[in-house]
């Protein structure tokens, strides 16, 4: 039994509850994406797309421009951009609905050239997977199970394929696909890897490869094998021509991104923070895995005889490729390091998620080269 005053208290609590529940959503659904082209970094950094000189950290352009409007290309940017035919292709997500449009930006000036689909047509599903290109086409996987090939200069769709379902609703594509000769290899959250003919979008393998866990991260290819990380704690090596499994390696937790491939070594991290070095048969080669300070979501980076590992706690580690020994670590917390590292112009570039800096570049020994403040 509630008296009038109690009911007023409850009404107040109800309003508080509404505010608490309404505030449950986070600011961003994914982390920034970064692409390198001609010593320039193209960064889809949530609220803007940036073109930055890799050597100096100088901003060349941004989209939307300062005091300028985004036009039909509105939203947040996180999928790794693709650079082809003088155009930087990015995905703009409407944070309210999760729907996305692709936008073609002029590579030199950042001006908007086209959007796909055009503003008068329904948008695509969410685009979390990185965009990939073979120079003449840009390939996109969407969160509602579509794969598209787009002409980068015009923004026209060359083909559009809906992946078949496997009993879990529309297959979500979050994993950045990879090109192997004439095939586009696509991993899905419903535990599968499928191959599409890159020219037509038709299914190429007789049957998809089936893992036991979701495939969310970028696939990796070294010419001999396709490497796929999964949420069933395994790294799989597949025959890229047929999809047949060659071997699998059991990690300590989910394997999100595929490995970095360096000569005869594969370097892969897992969500428990362990980093493993494997040979081409999936056998560990370091005496023990390296233990980072947080989950390792992003693919490590190998440059010469050094391995760079970014963890979610904001640490960047430098390891010796031969034995996994730690040489140095730097901390970028409160930024979280979820985006794969890139190497360009003798720099290793980090894109923190959150924290005071948009980009931080290091020399090969992790001495800081430049920073771009948020």
């Amino acid at each position, binding site marked *: *039994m*509630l*008296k*009038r005053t*109690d*009911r007023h*208290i*409850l*009404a107040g*609590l*109800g*309003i508080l*509850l*509404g505010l*608490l*529940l*309404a505030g*449950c959503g*986070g600011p*961003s*659904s*994914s*982390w920034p994406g970064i692409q390198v082209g001609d010593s320039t970094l193209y960064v889809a950094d949530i609220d803007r797309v940036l073109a930055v000189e890799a050597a100096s950290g100088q901003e060349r352009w941004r989209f939307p421009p300062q005091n300028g409007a985004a036009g039909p290309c509105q939203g947040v940017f996180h999928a790794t951009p693709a650079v082809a035919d003088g155009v930087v292709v990015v995905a703009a997500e409407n944070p309210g*609905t*999760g729907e996305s449009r692709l936008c073609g930006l002029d590579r030199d000036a950042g001006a908007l050239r086209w959007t796909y689909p055009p503003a008068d047509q329904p948008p695509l599903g*969410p685009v*979390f997977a990185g965009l990939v290109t073979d120079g003449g086409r840009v390939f996109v996987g969407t969160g509602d199970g579509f794969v598209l090939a787009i002409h980068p200069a015009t923004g026209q769709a060359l083909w559009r394929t809906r992946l078949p379902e496997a009993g*879990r*609703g*529309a297959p*979500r594509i*979050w994993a950045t696909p990879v090109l192997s000769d004439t095939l586009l290899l696509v991993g899905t*959250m*419903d535990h599968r890897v499928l191959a599409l003919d890159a020219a037509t979008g038709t299914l190429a393998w007789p049957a998809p490869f089936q893992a*036991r*866990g*979701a495939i*969310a991260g970028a696939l990796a290819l070294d010419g001999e094998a396709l490497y796929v990380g999964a*949420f*069933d*704690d395994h790294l799989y090596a597949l025959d890229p021509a047929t999809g047949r499994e060659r071997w699998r390696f059991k990690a*300590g*937790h*989910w394997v999100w991104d595929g490995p970095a491939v360096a000569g005869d070594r594969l370097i892969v991290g897992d*969500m428990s923070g362990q980093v493993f070095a494997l040979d081409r048969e999936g056998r560990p080669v370091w005496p023990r895995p390296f233990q980072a300070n947080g*989950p390792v*979501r992003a693919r490590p980076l190998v440059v010469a005889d050094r391995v760079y590992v970014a963890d*979610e706690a904001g640490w960047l580690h430098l390891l010796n490729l031969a034995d996994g020994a730690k040489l140095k670590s730097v901390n970028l917390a409160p930024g979280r390091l*979820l985006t794969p590292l890139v190497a360009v112009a003798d720099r290793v570039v980090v894109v923190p998620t959150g924290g005071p800096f948009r980009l931080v570049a290091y020399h090969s020994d992790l001495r800081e080269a430049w920073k771009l403040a948020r």
Partner: protein
Amino acid sequence: MNPITLVTNLLFFQPLVNLLLVLYAAMGRNFILAIVALTVLIRLLLYPLMAQQQRTARKMQELQPRLQELQKKYGKDRERLAQEQMKLYKEAGVNPFGGCLPLLIQFPILIAVYQAIIHVLALNPMAVIDLSKLIYRFNGFPALATLLPIQSQFLLWDLGRPERIFVPVGGILIPLPIMTLLVILTTWWSQKVMSPPATDPQTQMTTQLMNLYMPLFFGWISYNLAVGLSVYFIVTNLISVIQFALATRDVRRLLPRWLARPRPAAPAAPNPPAASPARPKKTEPARPSKARRPAKEG
């Protein structure tokens, strides 16, 4: 992570997330059934508290005639009225605030359930990063993680997103918030059924306002947040009503008044029942509304 969040996660939120995943597996990978099962479990856990609330409500109903008398007697002296009312509550062993506790406990549970639904559905990569830290592992094997991704689509609805269904009418898209309307309807119903009778016109007006305001408020929350939460609200409301009916053994009270009104005795009946279907006025729960409800039997 601060220590309070850490402890809350470990003791409460993380078990809830994993329970939801287990229920999802047990319900044949049907997430809406998993939410229903979770709601039923939560209501079962809260049953002792809810029963206490209903006992208090019943006792308050029994006190209504005496409260009305006090109202008549001391209506002009509010201080004295409050004193006498408290005295009466004390004599009858009723805590007038006893009904608040179960309602207050429901707020953190509601927030935790909503967070659990959103986290388990993990509709974007950042949400999956968070989820990876919450899922239990058994002997180092990610058994529950292999359930991901959760199938969030149910008929017209994506359970992890706000309800946005539109129907074209004359070239204009009109929103059709079915789940939101069900939340409003069931909230209104449970409020209506369980609202105790008012003792004075002011309280009656407040009750009427609350019976209007609360359904609209929960409807507003439902329209703006994930549909999974609407499912929780609807099931909670229905269970509340069923619990109330079982506790009072009065199914007629759940019906609209025009349906629940007792039929007039047949004119040809040779021996009309001695007692009216309604209780004598003095023991009937006073409800100064337009139409008097049929009183409960026994």
